[in-house]
């Protein structure tokens, strides 16, 4: 006689109960309260706010402000990326194993002292990229004041760390035989890099940098929320003033910007590949 019941039901129920017991402290700590959203007074306020989203603000004065903020966001991302490159390229050259001379007679493994000398640089790269960019932005806003400078510096530092790590790995992943031949024949490291590594790695490096530039645009909008200029700062201001129509048109601009940056970066990467 075949049972109609699922034989695995009991363990599943027990597992679910266990998961719920573990989640309980999480529910308490996160103070989850969905009822707040459906509270009558709150619902009225939010409804009013949301209904002011349509039509999005489009008077000429506001559109001019919007265009300025958008340009500022783009400029922050671009300037930040150039600082990041200034930081990343020397650090990647210092950190990569690809240009190690002590590795030549050891089959690609640098001597222990050479690895130990590279570790501080790698550690610096880890610290630079592990603190989120918005934390750097907040720190710089306190140090250099509100405005785009803080955003540029924050992107420069975080993306410098990320690019430095990735560039170093790209250098190591190329075919190292030309580089080793150059190094063994006595060429200095920089020329070995320029003629051995770079021709093989350039495509990948360019396409990764373009992809990061696209990420930097998104990051610069986000960083505006802590006062680092650009579109994000304007969104934050309008949110605080409950100006729904302005928020709506700025969110639409943000979406369009992200979409265009995505298309543009895909086109550029396709071209560079």
């Amino acid at each position, binding site marked *: 006689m075949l049972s109609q019941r699922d034989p695995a039901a009991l363990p599943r129920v027990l597992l679910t109960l266990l998961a719920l017991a573990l989640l309980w402290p999480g529910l308490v700590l*996160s*103070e989850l309260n969905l009822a*707040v*959203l459906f509270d009558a007074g709150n619902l009225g306020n939010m409804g009013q706010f949301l209904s002011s989203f349509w039509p999005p603000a489009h008077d000429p004065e506001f559109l001019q402000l919007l265009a300025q903020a958008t340009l500022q966001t783009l*400029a922050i991302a671009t300037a930040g990326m*150039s600082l990041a490159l200034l930081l990343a390229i020397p650090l990647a050259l210092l950190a990569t194993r690809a240009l190690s001379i002590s590795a030549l007679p050891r089959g690609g493994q640098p001597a222990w002292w050479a690895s130990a000398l590279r570790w501080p640089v790698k550690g610096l790269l880890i610290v630079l990229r592990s603190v989120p960019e918005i934390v750097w932005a907040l720190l710089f806003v306190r140090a250099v004041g509100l405005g785009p*400078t803080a955003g*540029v510096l924050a992107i420069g530092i975080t993306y410098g760390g990320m690019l430095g790590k990735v560039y170093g790995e790209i250098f190591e992943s190329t075919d190292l035989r030309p580089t080793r031949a150059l190094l063994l024949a006595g060429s200095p490291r920089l020329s070995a890099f320029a003629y051995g590594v770079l021709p093989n790695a350039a495509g990948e490096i360019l396409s990764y940098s373009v992809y990061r530039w696209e990420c930097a645009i998104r990051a610069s909008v*986000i960083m505006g929320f802590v006062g680092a200029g650009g579109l994000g700062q304007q969104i934050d201001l309008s949110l605080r003033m409950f100006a729904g129509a302005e928020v709506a048109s700025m969110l639409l601009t943000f979406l369009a910007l992200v979409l265009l940056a995505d298309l543009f970066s895909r086109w550029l990467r396709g071209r560079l590949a």
Partner: protein
Amino acid sequence: MKRLGNLALLLAVLATLYASFAYLKLDLLGLFSGDSPMMMWRYAQGFLQPDFSAELLRQIGRGTLETLAMSAIGTLLASVLGLLLALPAAGRFGALAKAVTRFLLNALRAIPELVWAALMVLAAGLGPNAGTLALTLHTSGVLGRLFAEALENTPAQPAQALRLTGSSSISAFCYGTLPGVWPQLLAYALYRWENNIRMASVLGFVGAGGLGQMLYISLSLFQQAQAASVILAMLLLVLLVDLFSNWARQRWVQAG
């Protein structure tokens, strides 16, 4: 011809760089002249002696737990909501429902967590509740899309076989479709959880609880020593999550 194009591209990049610096009127050199390096150094010095008093460590511990709880509950709710939205988005309830839910998922996903958090702080007040809701909204957009793709790519035969032998559509889904896609759904949810832990630690900047809120408050009060400890805690949290997820991935994904 291609060479000429590349040259033009290079010139365009340089022109854009110049235009960006000119538009922002950045005074980077000004940061290194006059007495501003001195002031920056004094500001930075405050961070060099993190505060490790027991009281602060207890608060940081609570903030870390709050961050973890926000990300866990947010991801869990988002998985449930994402699965509910993924069913119509995978085309199980007709083309109209598919188009509508796809649009909804894209909208949820396109707005970043921090913007959702700023909105939720207005709607639900300050505190971790707003952060949890913000993570839920953004993540359900992301997971809904991923889940819908997983559901579309899973073989339909087991569920069809169950339907043909007379089981209801719900049990056909639970016993025919779900066992096949379950591991993939879980992998997506865990991956998003990892992202959300990182995100939850900064959502507090707009008042949505967790470690971020502690950092924001201590920086606003110019308590650099306390801020430095919170930053160290964030760094530690992110590095531990990275290590753990690398380990888990090697342990389970590559072996399996």
